[in-house]
């Protein structure tokens, strides 16, 4: 079975500053990795995903993430945040092949962008 740990429950940051949201996973097999964003009272929207290939993945809204197999991490980054980026961010892992194709989610990181 796989699991996900989001190391920070809350990340406060000022507008236009860079941000990194940390995610570590555990799995004994190859994995797919995802970052989702959830705005208040809404469902989850996919930001980006890693399936294979280049370890640097670019997503929507200027976000990117880097897959690091040796450190079993998939940290999310943005060079300059906006007020509108304030939301809950979820990292998820799914078995890469031959698995149940059910993603396991972390507990989430609340990104709070201050003016």
């Amino acid at each position, binding site marked *: 079975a796989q699991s*996900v740990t989001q190391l920070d429950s809350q990340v406060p940051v000022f507008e236009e500053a860079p941000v990194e949201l940390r995610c570590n996973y555990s799995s004994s097999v190859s994995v*797919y990795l*995802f970052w*989702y964003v959830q705005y208040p*009272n*809404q*469902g*989850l*929207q*996919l930001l980006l*995903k890693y*399936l294979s290939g280049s370890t640097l993945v670019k997503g929507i809204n200027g976000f990117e993430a880097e897959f690091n197999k040796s450190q079993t991490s998939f940290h999310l980054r943005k060079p300059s945040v906006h007020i509108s980026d304030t939301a809950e961010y*979820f990292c*998820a892992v799914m078995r890469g092949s031959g698995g*149940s*194709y*059910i*993603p*396991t*989610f*972390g*507990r*989430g990181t609340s990104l709070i962008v201050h003016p």
Partner: protein
Amino acid sequence: DAGVTQSPTHLIKTRGQQVTLRCSPKSGHDTVSWYQQALGQGPQFIFQYYEEEERQRGNFPDRFSGHQFPNYSSELNVNALLLGDSALYLCASSLIQPNTEAFFGQGTRLTVV
């Protein structure tokens, strides 16, 4: 494309009652998964339906049941509601192959009083 739609958006039920939540998948998708998201937590997998059959199930009691219809839409039923069932219930649709991305609906906020 309307995406994944869920109904109702909000619901208040009394402990012991039964509830049915509904989900229409994104056009072209054949697989529907249901998640429970308690306040301040990540989504927890309840079950997944494909070809009108329950394909996978998470660690939820039998009070939670579901159904998928020939048009791929789905229902989640919860019997004998407990206060702890209060949560946001999310529906996600995907393709069985390749199953590499799930699209989520806005969710149904269930409050049990």
